[in-house]
């Protein structure tokens, strides 16, 4: 009798009449969810969509152990629109769904920082594939982890690279976001230590008309224009600077790492002293473990993986592994969120495709890779083949 009622319940689930709660009570499968948050629409969707796809692919390929334990793991993708308000609103929806045990997410530090406050209050673990602002982890939350480097190191990498290139004067521009302004400040500090004269430090939310900003920049004719922020602004600024006859060098950060930069800037990025950017994520092909990932990704989505797609894959992998460990410790029952968060920190030398990860006590990876990449082609399709001019492995600052 009981069995019949169970199957009746399952049918209701199948009919879509009930959601995860009843499903886990009645059906054999214990449903757990992993949410992703990244910009799926708007300026930064090129990268954001592939973070989601990377996570999706990981769930398909690495979900077997959990399935064997009787879990049904679902992906719950959310669009944070690269907007803090949207991110926080999504975060509230995510934490209110008890089936969600981990969040892979955020492309923008400015979105991750307020959203993770919500995860923190409900003990939900967040593995970030891309957020580089120091504050992401320095708040010391148990729930927040990242698998990439930090801006206080990335800015330094940029400034050291500029000094090595013989840059004597620089003008620093940023987008006033937590991420862009943060990295620009670290760049400026280190540049001054490197005896580079910083002619100006300006924030701007302008997206189109940089004429007024460029007058003082071009008048000072610095060796380098540094932009802390995202490609869709930086590339427009760089293009207009070239059009005004500026011949020096452009340097930006991992926010610049998007084929849109080539689409907007085109040949102007290659002219003059060229364009470089520092990043915490090389093109997927530089990591030794990604060959299979790239083929699988192309087969599934019929496109090359964008920057941070492989990191999306690894973040999902880490989340799944942690859920698996926590579930095993909980007699194969659905673990608590706290147990999952602790399991992420307890992972030792997780072998992902972009590296081997062990988190320190605030959630930074013990060693992170930093790259400086030169833009060599005006063709957006060739973005992933831009050459790496420098690779560094640096531990996070204490």
């Amino acid at each position, binding site marked *: 009798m009981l069995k019949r009622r169970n199957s009746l319940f399952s049918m209701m689930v199948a009919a879509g009449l009930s959601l995860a709660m009843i499903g886990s009570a009645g059906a054999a499968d214990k449903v757990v969810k992993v949410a992703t948050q990244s910009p799926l629409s708007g300026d930064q969707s*090129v990268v954001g969509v592939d973070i989601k796809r990377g996570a999706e692919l990981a769930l398909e390929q690495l979900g077997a152990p959990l399935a064997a334990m009787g879990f049904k793991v679902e992906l719950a993708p959310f669009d944070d629109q690269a907007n803090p308000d949207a991110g926080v609103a999504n975060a509230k929806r995510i934490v209110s769904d008890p089936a969600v045990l981990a969040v892979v997410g955020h492309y923008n530090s400015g979105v991750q920082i307020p959203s993770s406050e919500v995860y923190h209050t409900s003990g939900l673990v967040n593995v970030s594939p891309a957020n580089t602002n120091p504050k992401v982890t320095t708040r010391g939350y148990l729930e927040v982890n990242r698998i990439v480097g930090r801006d206080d190191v990335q800015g330094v990498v940029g400034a050291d690279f500029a000094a090595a290139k013989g840059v004597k004067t620089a003008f620093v521009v940023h987008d006033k976001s937590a991420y862009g302004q943060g990295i620009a400040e670290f760049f400026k500090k280190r540049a001054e230590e490197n005896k580079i004269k910083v002619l100006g430090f*300006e924030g701007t939310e*302008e*997206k189109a008309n940089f004429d*007024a900003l460029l*007058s003082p920049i071009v*008048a000072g004719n610095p060796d380098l224009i540094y932009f802390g922020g995202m490609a869709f602004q930086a590339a*427009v600024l760089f293009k207009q600077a070239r059009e005004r006859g500026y011949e020096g060098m452009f340097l930006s950060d991992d926010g610049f790492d998007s084929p849109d930069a080539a689409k*907007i800037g085109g*040949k102007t990025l290659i002219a003059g002293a060229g364009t470089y950017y520092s990043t915490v994520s090389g093109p997927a092909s530089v990591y030794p473990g990604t060959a299979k990932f790239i083929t699988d990704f192309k087969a599934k989505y019929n496109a090359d993986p964008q920057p941070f797609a492989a990191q999306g894959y690894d973040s999902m992998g880490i989340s799944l592994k942690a859920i698996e460990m926590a579930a095993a410790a909980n007699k194969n029952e659905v673990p608590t969120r706290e147990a999952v968060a602790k399991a992420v920190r307890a992972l030792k030398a997780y072998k992902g495709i972009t590296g081997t990860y062990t988190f320190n006590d605030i959630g930074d990876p013990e060693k992170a890779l930093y790259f400086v990449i030169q833009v060599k082609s005006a063709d957006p399709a060739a973005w992933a083949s831009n050459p790496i001019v420098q690779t560094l492995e640096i531990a996070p600052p204490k």
Partner: protein
Amino acid sequence: MKQFLRYLNVKELVRPIGQMLAFSLGSAAVMSAIILILALVLDKTAVGTALVNKLNVSLFSYTLSNLPQVVIDGLTIGFVYAAIALGYTMVYGVLQFINFAHSEIFAVGAFVGVEVLIFLQTLGVLSGASVFMAYAYLSLAILLAMLAAGGLAVTVEKIAYRPLRNAPRLVPLTAAIGVSFLLQDLIRLVEGLTTGQFNRIIPTFGNFDDRITGKLTLGATKLFIGISVKSIIVIVAAVLMLIALNYLVNATKVGKAIRAVSQDMRTASLMGINVNRIISITFLVGGLLGGAAGLLYALKFTRIDPFIGFFPGIKAFTAAVLGGIGNMTGALLGGIILGLLETFAGSYLGVFTMGAAGSEYKDIFAFSILILVLIFRPQGLMGKNVGQKA
């Protein structure tokens, strides 16, 4: 030909050119003088020494050497503002309400034009186009952008404003704000459904990105002037449109009817003027101008998104108010002044405040000036202080 010339009102062709020249040169000269005097005064103070430390150049020669470039940039954006401002001011002239949806008419123009160019690019005709063909394609895109924007403006008037013609003035204003949001999201929807992304980048073709440079020696200081071909296109196109508009309003029968309707709608209809038709024409003309301005804006600044209309729209509206809303010459003057003010502030604020307030404060500065002007001349620079209309 002779017959044709007899009907052509040459005075109305020459007058706007004179006005534009006078306004551009006049306001540029006034602002240049102010900034140069400021530079002279501050040269020997902390502001001057800070600049010498940084760039090894005196404040005065820095100001002077940047001046021509700043004026050119300011005029370019100023003419764009003027072209949009005319759309606001003409509608205000006939209906006494602010058509806040005009900024989205501008955005639609930008999107239609850019999509046409992207389509031409996918056909493969853009990349290898000769200079002549490049201009032909650009003209085609501008034309289609104008038609789309003009058609949309007329439709919006028919659907959203005409039923509210006799409602209190606040009602169509609210409707206009609603239409504005509606259109923004409509662009997002349509672009998202058809192309998958709603931020579009204008294709690079022709010689529009080239730059004409010159050098001027003035005593010890050398002045470098540069203007990109696309800035020239923006200015020339805007000037042509403004001349055409001026001719339409001041020298044709339709224009006479528009002026009559704006003076007194009821009496005009008693005189046999089809008021509805004239209002539609007004919206059409405003939309045509706005659509062309949209594509010119996209050409100059490369990247567009569905919210692109907001800031130029707000600024053009401001320009219309500054010049005296309802007054077409005023909109032209207001646009030029606002464009110059903003560019002057953006370019010099950082240096004159020793880096404390950079170009990000340009709008605050420009709008403070606007408030000051309106305190002393609430009717705007060229507006007439008329009593409440019947």
